[in-house]
């Protein structure tokens, strides 16, 4: 029974990792851009939610109404104003620019919000739990996080395969030059992709802020798991990213169950095994 509990907690943890990773997966899929500042942008969203929640006395989950559009706009401006200029044959410039961005964001947040540890206070929901079978209890918040991850990925999947915008995303991803010949403005499409990515980041940031403390320096720590989830799942595949997050979460939980010192290591080992067995991840999208 305890192992069942371990796996369930691991799956729920995987939901959080998947949520961290989805935005990263999305922009990599569309424009092959590796966003090193992704973790810091999650923290930006947490701080934005904090400012809105304290400024207007709102419940943190309601601040999503403001933070999601805000981050969407920020994503558009960021891509259009800076990152588009770095895209090209060489993958190094965007990497370096986002790396610099990561440092700028951390220090900017430090100036504005100080180094104090902050948290979004969501009241009773933080510690509420559900009794499921066999005396196992799961937290309401982790369940919400997992469900949110599934819904976000399902929604993005619809966006990608059922809408005009999705076709444009896929077309630019497959062959940017031909897409431009067909009248698609790459700069605009890339900016929209980053905007959608940051909208997901906003959700991740708010849920992270409700779950635990954050301060300006914790972003990079969140980036690693997001990367691993993306790569386990296969580059560019959204459902794969969810699977990657869950595999990572379950591997960590099982590792921790054996010995807490193995928690992080077990995740990395699972990641390495998958890289060896399936170098392109579980569900890679076509041939790149």
């Amino acid at each position: 029974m305890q192992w069942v509990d371990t796996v369930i907690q691991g799956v729920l943890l995987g939901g959080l990792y998947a949520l961290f990773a989805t935005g990263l997966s999305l922009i990599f899929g569309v424009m092959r851009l590796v966003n090193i500042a992704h973790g810091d942008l999650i923290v930006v969203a947490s701080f934005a939610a904090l400012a809105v929640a304290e400024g207007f006395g709102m419940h943190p989950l309601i601040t999503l109404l403001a933070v999601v559009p805000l981050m969407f706009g920020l994503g558009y401006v960021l891509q259009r104003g800076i990152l588009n200029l770095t895209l090209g044959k060489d993958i190094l410039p965007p990497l370096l620019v986002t790396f610099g961005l990561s440092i700028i964001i951390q220090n900017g947040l430090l100036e504005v919000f100080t180094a104090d540890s902050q948290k979004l206070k969501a009241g009773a929901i933080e510690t509420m739990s559900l009794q499921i079978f066999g005396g196992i209890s799961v937290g309401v918040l982790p369940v919400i996080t997992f469900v949110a991850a599934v819904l976000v990925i399902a929604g993005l999947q619809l966006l990608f395969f059922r809408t005009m915008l999705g076709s444009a995303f896929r077309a630019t991803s497959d062959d940017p030059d031909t897409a431009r010949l067909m009248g698609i403005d790459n700069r605009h499409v890339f900016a929209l992709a980053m905007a959608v990515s940051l909208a997901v980041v906003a959700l991740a940031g708010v849920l992270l802020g409700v779950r635990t403390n954050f301060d300006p320096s914790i972003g990079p720590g969140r980036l690693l798991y997001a990367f691993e989830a993306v790569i386990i799942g296969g580059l560019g595949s959204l459902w794969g990213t969810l699977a990657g997050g869950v595999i990572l979460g379950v591997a960590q939980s099982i590792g921790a169950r054996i010995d807490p010192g193995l928690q992080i290591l077990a995740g990395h080992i699972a990641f390495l095994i998958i890289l060896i067995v399936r170098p392109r991840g579980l569900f890679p999208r076509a041939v790149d």
Partner: protein
Amino acid sequence: MTDRKTKSGAPTISRRRALQVGAGVVGAAAASTVSAPAVLAATKKIRIGHVSPRTGPLAPFAVADTFAIGQVREKYKNGLKIGNETYEVEIISKDSQSNPNRAAEVAADLILKDKVNIMCVGNTPETTNPVGDQCEANDVPCVSSLAPWQPWFFTRGGKPGQGFKWTYHFFWGLEDIIGVFLNMWDSLDTNKQVAGLFPNDGDGNAWGDKKLGLPPALAKRGYTVTDPGRYQNLSDDFSAQIAAFKKANCEIVTGVVIPPDFTTFWKQARQQGFRPKAASVGKAILFPTSVEALGKDGHNLSSEVWWTPSHPFKSSMTGQSCAELAAAFEASTKRQWSQPVGFAHALFEVVFDVLGRTKDVGSNESILEAIVKTKMDTIVGPVDWTKGGPFKNVSKTPLVGGQWRFVDKKHKYDLVIVNNKTAPNIPVGGKMEPLG
């Protein structure tokens, strides 16, 4: 141009020599620009070096430093009188960016470029140790605090009989924290089963050590520690630990946990039905903001207490009581007081007491002589290096135990002293209460 001339004109001079000459010229130029105003100034100057983690994860500590430096600059704006001479006081504070390598670098800068007469430093071994090592290497006197003395002494390779020459430290030690925790738990009715949360970092390994850490010390007083093993900091999941603690029926939680991890642990413990009677942890709940992050769930968490506004001490520099100092801090920074406020102030109290007793401020040896003879009362209690504390170079300050109480008034939480067995001169403000 001069460089090339040297090289081509005198082929016997090696490249290294040429570089040394070049560096010497540049160094001399820099030194002359620095010392020019000093020559013009009528009074002599004392330079005090200070290293502080103003950015990065340790930044919450530095808030108290900024306030303390402001107070000192105000107090000595007309100079410091030593004997018959008045000296201009310059405090040069540099940012360590919470990085030990950077701390060593700026300390070297302060010593070699700014030519400080004395160094002072605090805020965790990550800051005190590299700065202390630089001072030791360059023969500059250094006063430090805000780091338990064992990691300060032993990690730097201190030998019990020998100690250090230039570096002196005042704070409490791990033996005090163990004593305080045990006294607090003894006052509750528990099954003496303790849950231990020790991360895989310097503090976690020291606290959790099977031979020298908490487990053997607690065993002596009849407590059993369940230690599932070292985990990585910034963990998102503590289910495994919680399951182990539930299985062992633990009623007490202890450990040395960073704030985000403690929040994750505490929330998950509630979600998964683990409700201990006491939780005494180091690091995680030092600052009031970290406790506030727990909402109402922070009520009655307990920790070691080094300084509060109700401590019965007085500043030797400003004459302020502890309560007055805390009030001044709150008025100036608009934040609730925290424990480092007292120690950041005391650090400068010691520095100025030492300088006031120094015979020849220009000589590092003479300043050191004054440090060794330090015996004074500060806002954090007596500092005395004459009797050789646990070791030469170390003077211990008192430690008591306290609980955070949710009051939701001007401050969301108040830190109330609940056990003073280790230092009866510090008054208690209430009784130890079990967690709800």
